[in-house]
């Protein structure tokens, strides 16, 4: 265990809360994966198991007045930002009580009321939206910040470039967080990306860039904390490259021909951010083993309850299928 506690050190309540949030993501994704494999869920789903530290470490610095944009792999971001677990689970079933009333599904979970501007099925779709939210924050003289989560594959979309340049010009309060899990679908980053340490690109935009171990919650907390503080202080945007790893395939059901079982097993063992933080919390005396066990049990119950909520919820009424295409004024 090489991680050291950053300054200011965590207190036990914080540690417990962080662990609970990471474990909520892990448990949610595990349950979803089981259900999907059992044919219980429609469509397709992308699990973020293994990437809990980036979501939680970043979002623990945010309030509901701050914004995030997310990706196709967005459950963790939504949970970390504070979405109702039941509403998200119901959305995955396409239920009327879902976060998007069943219209969106897994790839479009969103809760605008807490600044969660949506998972997004278009890779790179979040760059400009987050930049736009940051632009609005600046215009409104608010102390808030926008965070854009994206993967190592998204960095090659033109939208990355257009957004980072603009954020650089205007020193916008936005933090660009690359969850660099080394693969975009089935393709290794090195095959498609000239410089895989994405933070190198920051210089081209006159922006601070930093690369870090995204499986180390403390490192994430630290780097994100500094970047978000800079953003709030009007000191501009940051590009953070957080190295991480997804435990499951690209989507649930992926045969994973593109990476070896050894690679997966080794990385899961050494880099699991949840286990790693739990160990750290116990080793450093922040939590006891019993505390950890209690968090696990609490989370299991919360996920089970969210699942029951989803199952008990009614499907949407097909008669409303054409509602909300427009806000006003277009006859059917």
């Amino acid at each position, binding site marked *: 265990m090489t991680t050291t506690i950053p300054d200011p050190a965590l207190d036990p309540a914080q540690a417990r809360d962080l662990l609970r949030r990471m474990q909520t993501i892990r448990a949610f994704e595990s349950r979803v994966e089981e259900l999907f494999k059992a044919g219980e869920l429609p469509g397709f789903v992308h699990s973020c198991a293994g990437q809990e530290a980036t979501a939680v470490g970043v979002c623990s610095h945010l309030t509901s007045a701050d914004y995030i944009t997310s990706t196709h792999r967005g459950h963790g971001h939504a949970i970390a930002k504070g979405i109702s677990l039941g509403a998200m689970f119901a959305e995955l079933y396409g239920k009327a009580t879902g976060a998007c009333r069943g219209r969106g599904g897994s790839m479009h979970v969103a809760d605008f009321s807490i600044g969660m501007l949506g998972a997004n099925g278009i890779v790179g779709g979040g760059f400009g939206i987050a930049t736009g939210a940051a632009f609005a924050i600046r*215009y409104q003289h608010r102390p808030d910040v926008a965070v854009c989560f994206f993967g190592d594959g998204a960095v090659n979309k033109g939208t990355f470039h257009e957004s980072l340049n603009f954020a650089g010009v205007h020193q916008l309060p936005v933090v660009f967080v690359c969850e660099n899990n080394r693969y975009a679908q089935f393709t290794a980053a090195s095959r498609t990306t000239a410089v895989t340490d994405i933070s190198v690109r920051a210089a081209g935009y006159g922006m601070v860039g930093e690369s870090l171990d995204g499986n180390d919650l403390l490192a994430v907390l630290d780097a994100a904390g500094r970047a978000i503080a800079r953003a709030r202080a009007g000191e501009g945007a940051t590009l953070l490259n957080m190295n991480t790893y997804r435990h499951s395939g690209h989507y649930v059901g992926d045969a994973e021909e593109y990476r070896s079982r050894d690679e997966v097993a080794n990385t899961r063992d050494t880099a699991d951010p949840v286990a790693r933080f739990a160990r750290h919390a116990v080793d450093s005396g922040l939590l006891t083993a019993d505390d950890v066990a209690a968090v696990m049990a609490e989370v299991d119950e919360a996920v089970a309850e969210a699942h029951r909520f989803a199952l008990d919820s009614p499907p949407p009424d097909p008669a409303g299928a054409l509602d909300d*295409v427009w806000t006003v004024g277009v006859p059917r």
Partner: protein
Amino acid sequence: MTFGQATLEAMQFAMDEDPSVVVIGEDISWGGNFGQFRGLVDRYGHERVVDMPISESLIVALAVGASAAGLKVVASMSFVEFTLGAMDEIVNQASKFRYMFGGQTSVPIVLRASDGIRGSSGAQHSSSLEGMFCNVPGLKVVAPSNGNDAKGLLRAAIADPDPVIYLEHKKITGQRAPVTEGDFTVPLGSAAVVREGTDLTVVSYSNMVNHALVAAEQMATEHGVSVEVIDLRSLIPLDLDTVARSAMKTGAVLAAHESWAVGGFGAEVLAQVREAVPEQSALRTARLGAKTAPIPFSPQLEPAVVPGVAELVAEMRRLLAV
């Protein structure tokens, strides 16, 4: 007052009324490529009148993101062909945001784009693309033919909570005509009968309406045919009532636009007219649009592709066999 100046007035009413309205675009603080934004920066400053990099994807995505955070963004896209560089943002994000997020949010943005031919501007600066936009649920699409409507429709578009594609024809942006003073709106979805007639209805929008009025006059004087001209003004929402009423009266509809006929909005107008008119057998319909080619540069070729008054007259005569 020119068409462009009329839109400037609408911008000012909107910006004075609502501090959350901001304007973005390339060269916008210099007035934009057609001068319709001239002077805005002096009045509202660089915070509200924002010069954008040549980053069309970002322009639209920024508008969407800013609207999620409480602003109302009017984005100048300059030539309509440049919106193609933001089609992902327009279609996959702006048009779907409200619906796919279950009605949690609206996307009150206006994308202003200059379309149509201005004379030898070549294949990448002369197109009209409303055919594409009108195929996208969630967008609204307007295309005024004159300064008065331009002003009223822009005011309505900015007030509207949904994404509006506001198409201004390059050839008439500089044209002068009387414009109603003061603040007013032309509601989206209301067509105007700009000339009454009994024998045939021309349904059109944007600058083609002006050609249609000339052609109608010619049909009256030269062929004794009474032509009704409808200016749709707003394509989505479409004022089908007004069109259908006229169609039932005249029994013949010509849907005409400057953009390509094939796959264009004219075919859609005809399809909707036929859905709306109960007794179809007597109804004659035709559509007129550009022939199927990119818009050529040469002054000799451009009019061979893009229809004008002569083609309107010819098509009306063919339809009525006069």
